[in-house]
């Protein structure tokens, strides 16, 4: 009944909000604001409700256990959590330098005519469907990384270290390519806002362009931090591309990034189709979703806070 009411009341709510726009504009606008706040609240509440069965049964052990054993109805998301952390770490380590590189390239190196085009290319990368990134990762990047890493390792230790093209490392590299534009957009914006008088001061004391870029990057470090958290939030939440290249290793716990693994989001995506057949899997997956929600909320909130504080 509750769900029914929810859906049914939605339509009159929106119609009322629209109507109010014409009569009492401000209240109409406020109703739209309330809508978004209510959505977030409802989302968190629903996940708590759906995850309740397994939290009631296992407590918070579901977050710390490493075994994902549907047959025994024993679920732990720790290896997925570890996978999320590892892939995000690899992705951020590769993405931040590239994002800073993009900001400096656009603002310091490129002539004015090329700046718009380059910027559009970076933005286009952000608009590309993630499933196409996954497709490319599946058939091009994965095999390439396997060959590249193994030829290096054969040279160094005489053996292949990456047995499958689909590993946490592959997912991390693919993620890096996908999240760079997000961090780059924020850093670019901040960098372009460095005031002209400050720029003149930096050059007047005899800095080279490279040295000046460094000083400016220091000046916009709030934006760099903000871009960092924005990209991190994106990396932790990305599902489809990661699911296609991470290897789907549900059973074995590993911290070796050159092995196949799993992340929380790809766990949900890959296991949900099975979930109806088991009693506790759906709640377990919702518990994972709850975790992802809390991460997403926290990280995005931090990112916004940092960017806004720097703007004052």
């Amino acid at each position: 009944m509750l769900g029914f009411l929810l859906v049914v009341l939605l339509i009159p709510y929106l119609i009322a909000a629209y109507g109010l726009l014409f009569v009492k504009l401000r209240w109409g606008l406020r109703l739209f604001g309330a809508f978004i706040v209510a959505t977030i609240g409802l989302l968190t509440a629903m996940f708590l409700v759906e995850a309740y069965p397994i939290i009631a049964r296992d407590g918070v052990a579901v977050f710390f256990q490493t075994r994902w054993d549907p047959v025994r109805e024993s679920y732990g998301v720790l290896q997925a959590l570890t996978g999320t952390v590892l892939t995000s770490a690899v992705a951020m380590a590769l993405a931040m330098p590239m994002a800073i590189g993009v900001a400096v390239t656009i603002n310091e190196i490129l002539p004015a005519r090329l700046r718009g085009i380059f910027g559009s290319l970076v933005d286009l990368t952000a608009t590309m469907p993630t499933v196409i990134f996954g497709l490319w990762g599946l058939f091009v990047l994965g095999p390439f990384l396997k060959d590249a890493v193994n030829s290096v390792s054969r040279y160094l230790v005489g053996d292949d270290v990456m047995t499958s093209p689909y590993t946490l490392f592959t997912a991390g590299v693919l993620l890096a390519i996908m999240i760079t534009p997000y961090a780059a957009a924020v850093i670019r914006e901040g960098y372009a806002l460095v005031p002209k008088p400050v720029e003149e001061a930096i050059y007047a004391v005899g800095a080279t362009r490279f040295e000046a870029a460094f000083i400016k990057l220091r000046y916009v470090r709030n934006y760099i931090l903000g871009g960092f958290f924005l990209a991190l939030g994106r990396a932790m939440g990305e599902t489809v591309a990661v699911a296609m290249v991470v290897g789907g290793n549900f059973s074995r716990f590993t911290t070796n990034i050159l092995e196949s693994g799993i992340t929380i989001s790809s766990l949900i995506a890959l296991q949900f189709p099975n979930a109806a057949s088991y009693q506790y899997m759906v709640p377990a997956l919702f518990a994972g979703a709850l975790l992802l929600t809390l991460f997403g909320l926290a990280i995005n909130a931090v990112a916004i806070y940092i960017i806004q504080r720097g703007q004052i």
Partner: protein
Amino acid sequence: MAKVEFKDLRVSFGALPVITGVNLSIPDRSITALMGPSGSGKSTILRVLNRLLELYPEARVSGEVYLDGQNIFDMNVLELRRKVQMIFQIPNPIPNLSIFENVALGLKLNRLVRSRGELFKRVKSALEKAQLWDEVKDRLGAPAGKLSGGQQQRLCVARALAFEPEVLLADEPTANLDPENTAKVEALFLELKKEMTIVLVTHYPPQAARISDYAAFLYKGQIVEWGPTRDVFTKPRHELTEKYVTGRLY
């Protein structure tokens, strides 16, 4: 030989000409004032001299500029900026750096000192000359953005003086300061001219009359008149000059 020589300097921003043929000699160890109404090109001339104009890609420069006989466009720009320092109209310390770091920045970048002790000595001496040392000596690590306007400008003066430059370019440095700080800066310039050449852009003829040795009157991108200050003010040869120094031209 004059310290600085401009020969047929022309500057345009895109299609708009700003300086249309300037010939000027700046004598050593003196204060030369560049005065003229807004838009006459005074600040542009200053920015040519330390090649800061290169930050404006639309600017086209032709002509020759000599520092001690050397063409500044043939010099390495870093070497030029070691010798020619600038103070701006609106104080522009780098706000997130500390007071100490602001003064030390140029010295560190250009490797002008060889030890932390030497760095500290030069920063202290620059701040003392700029008459800021006493006010900040207990908080050298505080961010420069927290200083008052007058203090920030003196910080920028210290930043320039730390180089022990040969030429000091001042772009309307007291335009945003109160009379007390203005007097301090003017007194400072009178002291400094014994060691260096000062080129002062001023919007305010009485200031030129007060402290400069030579004055050049710039109007619509051209030097209308130039000579010892006393002559320019008391016996101007051009009607425009006379109108300007008596405050009837802006």
